[in-house]
């Protein structure tokens, strides 16, 4: 045996090893169940296939989870993203529905602008409660989580608003050079966040605030404005996710749009290896987490299992991944392996 660890062993120690294994297993299950799962067709210049759908349906969750990652990195949490999703969709569709020319591009752009601006303002409100007033994040965002759906109901007048508007429909269902627009948008946002946090000092300062707020303050870090910003950005992304969700159904459902998306987003962040205690965050980890959750939902449907038991399957995968990532379980497994190793080595010698 050489002294340096073999490549596979180093790979197993990588943070994202187990989440990626889980993702591969899920994809494999689907492929075995239906061999055409992996195939991607080009039809009318558009990409089609289960994997494309997977990415398209996962785009809103990715957006929400990206914002959530930044919030969690500062030791916070944002429960209000689901409500913001509902409000954003309600505002955009109500504006389009009340406009005389729902099919005009200008109308849609104005609607999108209003919805995103409002989402941003809601995030500023959350950030104000947390960073200025010092309210615990879970409580501060709970306010908007519960009140937000009521606001969305007010906007839609208690009805499920439906409209016909081709430009708006493109956000959720359109294609851009063969790729779904939602996937392009989510990809762009992902790249922007990655560049912004890793090419500037923002990532390090966010982590510093999350790991040790007081030390960061004494080091001159503007902890307040950083925390404020991440909540605003998180809500802005949730607003964009709300536009996608309402666009793919062309309906604003104040009660059900983005329902429980905050929980899925938190799960995705945790699966991706960002600790709820704040500090170090991993955007690629969050991406893997989102893909796992999205694939899991799809798998349950494809296997013909009733959607009502989906949460159970989600729970099982989450528990498995979290256990695999827990340092304590890793130590236990490592200790077992060490005990088993000498016997295995001895057996190998005998057989040789």
């Amino acid at each position: 045996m050489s002294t340096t660890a073999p490549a596979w062993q180093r790979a197993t120690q990588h943070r994202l090893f187990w989440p990626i294994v889980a993702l591969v297993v899920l994809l494999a299950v689907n492929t075995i169940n239906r061999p055409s799962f992996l195939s991607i067709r080009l039809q009318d210049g558009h990409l089609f296939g289960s994997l494309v759908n997977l990415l398209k349906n996962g785009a809103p969750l990715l957006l929400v989870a990206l914002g959530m990652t930044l919030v969690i990195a500062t030791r916070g949490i944002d429960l209000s993203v689901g409500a913001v999703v509902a409000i954003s969709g309600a505002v955009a569709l109500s504006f389009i529905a009340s406009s005389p020319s729902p099919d005009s591009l200008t109308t849609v752009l104005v609607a999108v602008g209003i919805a995103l601006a409002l989402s941003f303002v809601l995030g500023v409100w959350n950030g104000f409660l947390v960073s200025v007033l010092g309210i615990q994040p879970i409580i501060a965002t709970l306010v908007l989580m519960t009140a937000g759906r009521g606001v969305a109901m007010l906007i839609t007048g208690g009805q499920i608003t439906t409209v016909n508007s081709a430009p708006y429909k493109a956000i959720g269902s359109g294609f851009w050079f063969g790729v779904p627009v939602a996937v392009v948008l989510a990809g762009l946002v992902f790249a922007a966040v990655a560049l912004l946090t890793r090419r500037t000092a923002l990532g390090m300062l966010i982590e510093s605030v999350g790991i040790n707020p007081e030390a960061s303050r004494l080091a001159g870090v503007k902890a307040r404005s950083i925390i404020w910003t991440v909540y605003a950005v998180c809500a802005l992304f949730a607003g964009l996710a709300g536009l996608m969700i309402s666009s793919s159904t062309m309906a604003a459902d104040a009660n059900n749009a983005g329902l429980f998306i905050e929980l899925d987003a938190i799960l995705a962040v945790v699966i991706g290896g960002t600790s709820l205690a704040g500090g170090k965050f991993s955007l690629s980890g969050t991406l893997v987490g989102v893909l796992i959750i999205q694939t899991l939902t799809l798998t349950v449907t494809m296997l013909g299992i009733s959607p009502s038991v989906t949460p159970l399957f989600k729970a099982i995968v989450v528990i498995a991944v979290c256990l695999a990532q827990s340092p304590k379980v890793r130590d236990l497994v490592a200790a077992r392996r060490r005990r088993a190793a000498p016997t295995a080595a001895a057996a190998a010698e005998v057989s040789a």
Partner: protein
Amino acid sequence: MTTAVPDGRPVVEMTGISIEFPGVKALDGVDLTLRPGEVHALMGENGAGKSTLIKALTGVYSIDSGRIVVDGAEHTFSGPGEAQAAGVSPVYQEVNLCENLSVAENIMLGHEPRRLGAIDWRATRRRAGEMLARLNLDLDPASSLASHSLAVQQLVAICRALVVECKVLILDEPTSSLDADEVAQLFAVVRRLRDEGVAILFVSHFLEQVYEISDRMTVLRNGKLVGEYVTAELPRLELVSKMIGTSLEVLEELEEAPKRAVADRDATTPFVQAVGLGRKGSVQPFDLDVYPGEVVGLAGLLGSGRTELARLLAGADRADSGQVRVGGALARLRTPRSAMQRKIAFSSEHRKAEGIVGDLTIRENIVLGLQAERGWARRLPRKQVDEIVAKYIDALAIRPANPDALIKNLSGGNQQKVLLARWLATAPRLLILDEPTRGIDVGAKAEIQKLVAELAGEGMSVVFISAELEEVLRLSHRIAVMRDRVKVAEITNDEDVTVEDVVELIASGGQES
């Protein structure tokens, strides 16, 4: 002291107590004897082992060796409950009560009289009223605890300790957040209990209070017993020098004789000039000038206000009186950031809680201050970062010399050097160091001291705080003496000043005796 020192049969005898934590011997063969009807002070600087000893007596920590005898019977406490059952009741520094409950509920919590399995509220209130009467406290048992001052809450905590048959009452820093009248009220209760025959163990950093209330004292230093003394027979001066100790021979060998050159006072204006700067409940208004190239030492016991003074200069706390001039211009130091912009850097005494960012690397920890100053958008170019980091790892001999190592895995001395590097990288003109050498090994300590002297030689102003007076004397051009949150004296540190002189100033409070 008018009362005779009681000398009855001891109620607590702890002998040869040793407790070891991984890598640290917290207590090493310490004895403590408490007699009924006496107030016994437990004295020592931070880290001397006072709290560890209290936790051994209250059963929070189990002891590695030694004997604990309470009321004639030997005990091996394995939890606070057992110690309480034996009659040892602690009242901790932070009041451990439920503010949302009534006074009576707080006093009787866990000992409520019961009737048919349910709490008998009337009896509860009556018993609580009796306890209050015993301490001569005029309080309504049904009133909410939150409606009373901190001092009254402290007294309620004592009441609570007395509900169980209490032979030994432990008061850990009971006066740290009380004003003079409240202290008097507390002491009246303490005397009353003492006269009833309760043994009281009193821990406080306020020397005056210790001399006012205690009959005897036990002094600890670095986990070892210095001795037990009758308070009236031990002059303050001797007590302070026993607490601080003079065990720095090793260091003195490492370093040649200190340079006590008087700083360049030709500079007409001080770099920092504080006038009447103060903060209520933290430090009384003080004046302080710091000239370029000068090291000003702050001497005083723990809790004397030396840290609080430094925090005001650094913008870590906001002053509510007085003003500061930096480089001659009026400056409002409202946040650490605003102080940094005026080239004032502050290294906190709490290395873990307020210094290092544990999960970040050495590199990130070094550039954090500089990067924060530039703002997030203007990231330091990687090349410049590497140059800065390499320079300081080399200059300060940081080990491991690997910039990617996580700072939480470094030894205390190396963490301190990284923090120094963080501040030096911001090119400060005033460097405030609060206990930069606490808890680090002798070698690193000497290196940091040398660095401070060199920096001052290059024209930087330094405010240097340390519990070790030898260190303060070795480095400082001028020494400000703090006591009980007041700056009581300021002396120029020339050849003739000795540790004893400073100790005397601390003990006398700067007044000629």
